């Protein structure tokens, strides 16, 4: 498809500015003016509408396809939350208003949403307080680890390391490193969870804490999580819960109940806000009492008269981690989603997410090797190693699925599993949709035995097939205007 810039015709306009009702009064002095012409395209409104509509149709999405991308929780994003997010009283609200004198009155509804959401997340996770500010999961991780550092600094602890299981998302070690820590990576045991023996070997007084996803990226819940917490606390380490997989435990498990001190939630995963082709997300962070003093400012408080306000007066706070109060538009959608589902709906969500994943596991396990042959939680991790021996790799399977109208599962992650295929169906998919996926997977397995080239020659139905990624990285072209 042509680029929007290639559709440009000099003199075309897609939007007309209003005429000035004050006349022409000012010019930018010459030395401050831009000299080079800006190359934005000149296209009509219809050109723009058609261009972006056609582009959008080149995407797979939850609205159009089954999207079992493991670790990403691609559930259905209900439409009513979109309408709520567009309410002009929220969408048009300027973030500096509550910082004016008596300004909290101007944003009372928005502040109440933030406060109520904090309360709901505390109830869901068993934490004592939340900040809604972090703008994505990884941003939440950084906020959490900085609070851990502030805690150790205040206590005079000399800490150097953060322990992270080898099955963790890449954001965990990246975050800990950016916050100034060294990483100790601990391997999984034969059951697919972090090895307790290896953990013990690596524990020392220099350990600031442990970051763990539970269930982990193998889709397995660590049944000895309480013992892990006891061990980490024994060296005054802190327990960080990566909430990426929270969809697996709603109403079944709360991190705060077993000794986690700090956690983040990806609202765009568990609480169903649209992933947007890679964001915006939202990564609120919860803490138990010992970390509350370090929460970033501002904090939303509720006064005796029931009104909400912002408070900046926390001397031990780590400070500002974002410009304002979080990705409010995302928080608002997630708030509406939680209210709609309620207690039973949340629990049912988890139950069916786990049921669907185990159903896939159960029906495919005789054909695709399981990373760990046991019940799973919200995602089932397979290895295509058997098929790979026949010349059909995980990547080939992914591309074949595209031709069948299914977005591929996550492949080659977690790194701990060879030829990994990580399937997360979520609760919003029906048995019928899942059966179709299973049948396609069975067909792939069969073809890998009889006619492997029928799988490896894919996809055929898409506008492009097997892009040359090496060329992309070697002949870097990231800008139409040709300089880079």
């Amino acid at each position, binding site marked *: 498809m042509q680029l929007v810039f290639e559709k440009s015709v000099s003199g075309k306009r897609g939007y007309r500015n209003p005429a000035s009702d004050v006349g022409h009064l000012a010019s930018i002095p010459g030395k401050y003016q831009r000299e080079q012409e800006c190359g934005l395209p000149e296209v009509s409104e219809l050109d723009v509408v058609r261009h972006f509509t056609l582009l959008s149709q080149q995407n797979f999405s939850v609205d159009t396809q089954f999207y079992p991308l493991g670790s990403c929780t691609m559930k259905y994003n209900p439409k009513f939350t979109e309408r709520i997010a567009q309410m002009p009283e929220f969408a048009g609200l300027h973030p500096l208003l509550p910082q004016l004198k008596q300004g909290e009155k101007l944003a009372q509804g928005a502040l109440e949403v933030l406060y109520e959401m904090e309360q709901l997340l505390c109830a869901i996770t068993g934490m004592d307080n939340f900040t809604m500010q972090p703008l994505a999961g990884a941003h939440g991780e950084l906020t959490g680890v900085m609070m851990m550092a502030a805690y150790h600094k205040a206590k005079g602890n000399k800490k150097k390391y953060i322990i992270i299981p080898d099955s963790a998302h890449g954001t965990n070690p990246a975050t800990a490193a950016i916050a100034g820590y060294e990483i100790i990576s601990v391997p999984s045991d034969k059951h697919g969870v972090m090895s307790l023996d290896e953990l013990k070997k690596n524990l020392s007084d220099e350990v600031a804490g442990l970051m763990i996803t539970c269930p982990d990226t193998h889709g397995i819940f660590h049944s000895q999580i309480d013992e892990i917490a006891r061990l980490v606390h024994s060296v005054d380490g802190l327990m960080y819960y990566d909430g990426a997989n929270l969809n697996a435990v709603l109403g079944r498990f709360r991190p705060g109940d077993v000794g986690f001190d700090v956690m983040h939630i990806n609202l765009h995963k568990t609480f169903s806000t649209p992933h947007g082709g*890679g964001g915006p997300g939202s990564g609120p962070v919860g803490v138990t009492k010992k970390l509350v003093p370090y929460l970033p400012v501002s904090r939303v408080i509720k006064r005796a008269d029931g009104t909400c306000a912002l408070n900046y007066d926390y001397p031990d706070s780590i400070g500002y981690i974002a410009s304002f109060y979080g990705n409010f538009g995302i928080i608002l959608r997630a708030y509406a989603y939680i209210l709609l589902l309620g207690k039973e709906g949340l629990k049912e969500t988890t139950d069916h997410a*786990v049921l669907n994943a185990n159903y896939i596991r159960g029906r495919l396990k005789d054909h695709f090797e399981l990373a760990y042959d046991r019940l799973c939680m919200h995602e089932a991790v397979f290895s295509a190693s058997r098929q790979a021996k026949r010349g059909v790799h995980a990547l080939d399977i992914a591309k074949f699925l595209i031709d069948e109208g299914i977005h591929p599962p996550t492949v080659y992650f977690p790194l701990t599993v060879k030829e990994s295929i990580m399937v997360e169906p979520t609760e919003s998919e029906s048995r019928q949709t899942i059966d179709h996926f299973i049948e396609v997977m069975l067909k792939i397995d069969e073809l890998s035995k009889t006619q492997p080239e029928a799988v490896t020659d894919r996809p055929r139905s898409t506008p492009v097939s097997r892009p040359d990624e090496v060329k992309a990285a070697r002949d870097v072209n990231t800008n139409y205007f040709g300089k880079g």
Partner: protein
Amino acid sequence: MASFIANTPADVEAMLKTIGVSSIDELFADIKRSHAPKSFNIPAGKSEFEVTGHIARLAAKNAAGLIPFIGGGYYDHFIPAAVTALISRGEFATAYTPYQPECSQGTLQALYEYQSAVCTLTGMEVTNASLYDGGTALYEAAMMAARLTGRHKIIMDGGVSPIYRKILKTYTSNLHYEFTETPVVHGQSDRGQIMKLLDNDTAAVILQNPNFFGAIDDHADIAAKAHEQGALVIQSIYPVALGLLKTPGEMDVDIVTGEGQSLGLPLNFGGPYLGIIATRKKFIRAMPGRIVGQTVDKNGKRCFVNTLQAREQHIRREKATSNICTNVSLCAVQSLIYMSLLGKEGLKELAQLNLDKAEFARREIEKVPGVAVKRSSPTFNEFTVVLPKDASRVVEAMIAKGFAAGFPLGQYYPGMENYMIVAVTEKRTKEEILAYVKSLKEILCN
């Protein structure tokens, strides 16, 4: 009440049988009974009708009717309907990170076009597919400069948004950076001080254009001096202003950051916004975040992929350039749609309209007895007003008259209690500006 479950009871029964368990509870055997929630106090579910009503009642508690003259880096610009309609398409909104390029060409091509638009707007060679927002983008730029130079000193102009400066301090508090803030002189960067501080330990000088007080500047001289010392220059920008203003590329700036909210995104009480970062091609591997590149497919057809991923956390883990994973792709595409509708002439006109409206407001406000408008340096659509009394009280009184009159500076700049910054976008009409001035006069003269 409602949840988005699609399995019928008959499905559940059949599925449990396939799995070989007798109940859903059995699937959770790894969670010990002693680990069951101590409580789960969530209200019962409600219907869509009820939730929408509840949130509409909360919405009504916000002051929606105020006429905004408040900016501070976040501006009330008009958003054409086509922007909202196109960005609401489920194919954009409910897709994820384009890991599988064959079924994500829509997002990938749009992000390549976004990158191209940002490059031509800023006069820079390369950019990425977005960061979270303008404030965190500035932090990422500072870290990038420190990595590139291997140095630890950062000079920060006092005209950089005080909010951004606070964010930077938080993130670097445990790391070994040395910040020096230089004051603003006559509204602009204090060249004398900056030049004096620049030495061969300096990683970067951080500037903003227009700055927080609304003043515009040409930082080419600072860039030249910084480069002599081997330091980099980071400039935070306001994209709409670049319809007219000298670009950071023309000033030889090394890393550009910016808040992209003004490019077709609603104010949304602080987010989601759009973090812009752009730089020189030679620094591309030190830049954080996802980058989309052009390539060809196996049949030689042009297509787009995520590229240079070896910088990123999912590959490099603790050695990554940043921990960023999810960014704000949808907001980037939204800004691209907006920029495409405006086009090069439309953006220029829009900037001129902002300039003219602000000049009109400036002239009218100046006529109010006891009020001064700072004119020591040229401005774009925001300017500094000195009031005869505490600006926060004046702004409070103006709210009663229906105006968000500006942002008082005292809270972030001690000693400037009588100052406020006033922003005037293309949406403000002559009538609104005159009514604003009339109200201001009433408040100050009574």
